[in-house]
């Protein structure tokens, strides 16, 4: 299949009729379409898939150009259409898809008729419409939808298309097998031998006449029973393998996420540590606040009374000189001596009017409560004490406030640090739960492996007994002349099945080797490092290196991923042009191959200047027709290399967000 022309009418931003003609000339087979971001590069790629398969994945569903849609008056209609002209196996086809939109009286734009038609050029040179029942089949004949993504792809897709991920792997295996002719053999083997009820061999076995032969009847029933069990076991084995593989890929994906998020884990620990420190600091702050409150309630009066205390102290200062009292003694003590004891502490009798009596009465005058001197002295003592407290109050409260403020600032700083960390890890997975997921998955893998081993053992013993039974049945059936024909048919079916199986294995090996060789040859022309691309089973690929320095950086950059994927796809496309021969099986005719175009949007995304030039050198040799939709900045590097093979250049002229025109550049 080679593309001749693409016509779009009011498809998304391509307002009115836009036409691109592609060159199919052997020498000049490259068409370049230049377009800046948002000019419609990816839309153009998607338009091919819409025309061929009626599928789109735009966020806004309507395909009708927004400007046209806005101008649509109630009751009026507008068409969106796409038309592809292509040549397949020497025949020209015109494939057209149309969708009508109309505005109803409520102002809503609704879908109306959709039409899909395929015309082909007859040997008389006239275009003739194919019957409706044929149109879907013919498109699938030209390019099966499943395979289309290998020929129409955009830059982001190329990074994942060849990745060894399970989701894509099955597609890759099927695509390679289909393009290189293996799918036909695989399908034939399925119909010949896979399934005891639906397969050729299964059905022929059922035709064996078992009447009048109890032993044969018994063995046939047992054979059926064991074959059914064997088929179930085989399915279970495949299912278990698939599940194990899927779990292993999940583990791999999660491990990558864990690795990518180790910094997140570190930041999370940092946040937790900060929270602990914040908590401790809050407790200290609380204590300091309580201390401050206590200081205020107890000592603040002394502080505010300082001037008053100073003045009072000054006033009572002179009283000290006239104080004749006895420290520690109060008037009540003298009264007690005179009135109750009647004797002085020196032993003298105390008689009223005596000298001792009079002396004591005199001393009593200077003792509290009557003695002002003592009161003053005590007052001064109190003042001094309270003055000390008052004087310390300021320093103490000042220091407490200072400490509380410092703690507050420290808490704020830690909280702001945590906010920053939280922003950094926002929307990032929790490494702890990812690690748990890996542990759980590994347990499941172990369980499935155990189950798989049991199934494999059972499969081995069942296969042996099914084969033994088959031989016995053949022998018993041959005793009846009526079975001669059906046994002969079975011989042919089994012989052909064996031939196909061995042909499949040898062709598969041949294809794998050739594909690896071709992919590496392309990869080495593009990549300027020291790596090799190794193709594994199921067409997975790995990049290896013997260079220690390169080995250290085995994390693939986006650019390298693009180069590896491009090489892989280019290898497939390039090999699809050729017949892959199984030299050991000349009996089986080879499946015809057909050239295919490569239609690429942003094939150079994430690659550097040198890779752009290297990919450009490879492109003309890979596909028989290449259509590149790229940005001018990339074209700058590719231009010099591709100029000789270049047939046409178009430019996407973006007038505004909803309007792009496609023009040929002379």
């Amino acid at each position, binding site marked *: 299949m080679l593309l001749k022309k693409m016509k779009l009418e009011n498809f998304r931003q391509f307002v009115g009729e836009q036409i691109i003609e592609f060159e199919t000339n052997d020498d000049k087979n490259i068409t370049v379409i230049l377009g800046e971001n948002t000019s419609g590069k990816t839309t153009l790629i998607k338009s091919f898939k819409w025309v061929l398969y009626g599928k789109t994945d735009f966020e806004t569903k309507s395909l009708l150009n927004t400007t046209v849609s806005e101008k649509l008056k109630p009751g009026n209609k507008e068409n969106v259409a796409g038309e592809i002209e292509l040549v397949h196996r020497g025949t020209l086809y015109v494939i057209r898809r149309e969708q009508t939109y109309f505005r109803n009286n409520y102002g809503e734009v609704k879908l109306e008729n959709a039409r899909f038609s395929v015309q082909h050029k007859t040997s008389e040179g006239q275009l003739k419409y194919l019957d409706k029942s044929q149109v879907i*089949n013919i498109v*699938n*004949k030209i390019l*099966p939808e499943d395979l289309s993504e290998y020929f129409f792809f955009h830059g982001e897709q190329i990074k994942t298309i060849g990745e060894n991920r399970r989701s894509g792997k099955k597609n890759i295996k099927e695509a390679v097998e*289909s393009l290189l002719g293996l*799918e*036909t*053999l695989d*399908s*034939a083997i*399925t*119909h*010949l031998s896979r*399934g005891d009820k*639906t*397969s*050729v061999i*299964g*059905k*022929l076995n059922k035709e064996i006449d078992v009447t009048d032969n109890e032993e044969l009847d018994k063995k046939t029933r047992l054979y059926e029973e064991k074959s059914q069990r064997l088929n179930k076991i085989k399915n279970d084995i495949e299912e278990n393998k698939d599940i194990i593989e899927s779990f292993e890929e999940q583990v791999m994906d999660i491990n990558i996420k864990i690795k990518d998020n180790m910094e997140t884990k570190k930041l999370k620990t940092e946040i937790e540590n900060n929270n602990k420190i914040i908590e401790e600091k809050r407790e200290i702050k609380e204590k300091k606040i309580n201390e401050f409150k206590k200081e205020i309630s107890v000592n603040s009066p002394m502080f505010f009374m300082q001037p008053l205390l100073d003045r009072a102290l000054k006033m009572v200062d002179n009283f000290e000189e006239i104080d004749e009292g006895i420290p520690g003694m109060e008037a009540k003590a003298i009264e007690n001596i005179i009135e109750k004891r009647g004797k002085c502490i020196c032993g003298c009798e105390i008689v009223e009017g005596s000298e001792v009596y009079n002396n004591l009465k005199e001393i009593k005058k200077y003792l509290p409560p009557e003695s002002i001197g003592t009161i003053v002295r005590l007052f001064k003592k109190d003042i001094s004490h309270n003055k000390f407290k008052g004087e310390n109050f300021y320093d103490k409260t000042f220091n407490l406030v200072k400490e509380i403020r410092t703690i507050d600032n420290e808490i704020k700083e830690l909280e702001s640090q945590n906010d920053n960390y939280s922003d950094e890890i926002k929307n990032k997975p929790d490494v702890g739960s990812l690690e748990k997921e890996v542990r759980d998955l590994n347990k499941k893998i172990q369980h499935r492996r155990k189950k798989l081993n049991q199934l494999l053992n059972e499969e081995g013993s069942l296969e042996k007994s099914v084969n033994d039974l088959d031989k016995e049945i053949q022998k018993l059936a041959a005793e009846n002349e009526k079975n001669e*024909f059906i046994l*002969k*048919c079975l*011989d*042919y*079916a*089994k*012989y*052909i099945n064996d*031939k*196909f199986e061995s042909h499949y294995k040898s062709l598969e090996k041949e294809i794998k080797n050739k594909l690896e060789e071709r992919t590496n040859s392309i990869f080495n022309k593009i990549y300027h490092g020291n790596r090799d691309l190794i193709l594994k089973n199921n067409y997975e690929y790995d990049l290896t290196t013997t260079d220690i320095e390169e080995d250290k950086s085995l994390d693939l950059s986006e650019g390298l991923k693009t180069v590896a994927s491009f090489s892989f796809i280019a290898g497939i496309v390039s090999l699809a042009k050729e017949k892959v021969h199984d030299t050991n099986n000349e*009996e*089986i*005719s080879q*499946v015809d191959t057909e050239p295919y175009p490569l239609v690429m949007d942003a094939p150079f995304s994430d690659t550097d200047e040198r890779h752009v030039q290297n990919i450009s050198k490879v492109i003309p040799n890979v596909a028989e027709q290449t259509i590149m939709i790229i940005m001018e900045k990339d074209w700058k590097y590719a231009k010099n290399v591709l100029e000789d093979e270049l047939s046409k250049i178009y430019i996407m002229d973006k007038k505004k967000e909803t309007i792009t025109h496609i023009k040929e550049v002379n």
Partner: protein
Amino acid sequence: MKENIDKTKVKRLMNKIIELESENLKTKARSRSDMSDKIIELIKEEVRKCY
């Protein structure tokens, strides 16, 4: 078993089956069971010729 197989007939049969499979992969017109029946028909037809 192998000694009963006519190499020319088997080659013709194999090519017919490949052609049938190749066509069906493109058109997806026949179901799995239909395909087995069609192959049985081809085998029987070929075996009958030498029978």
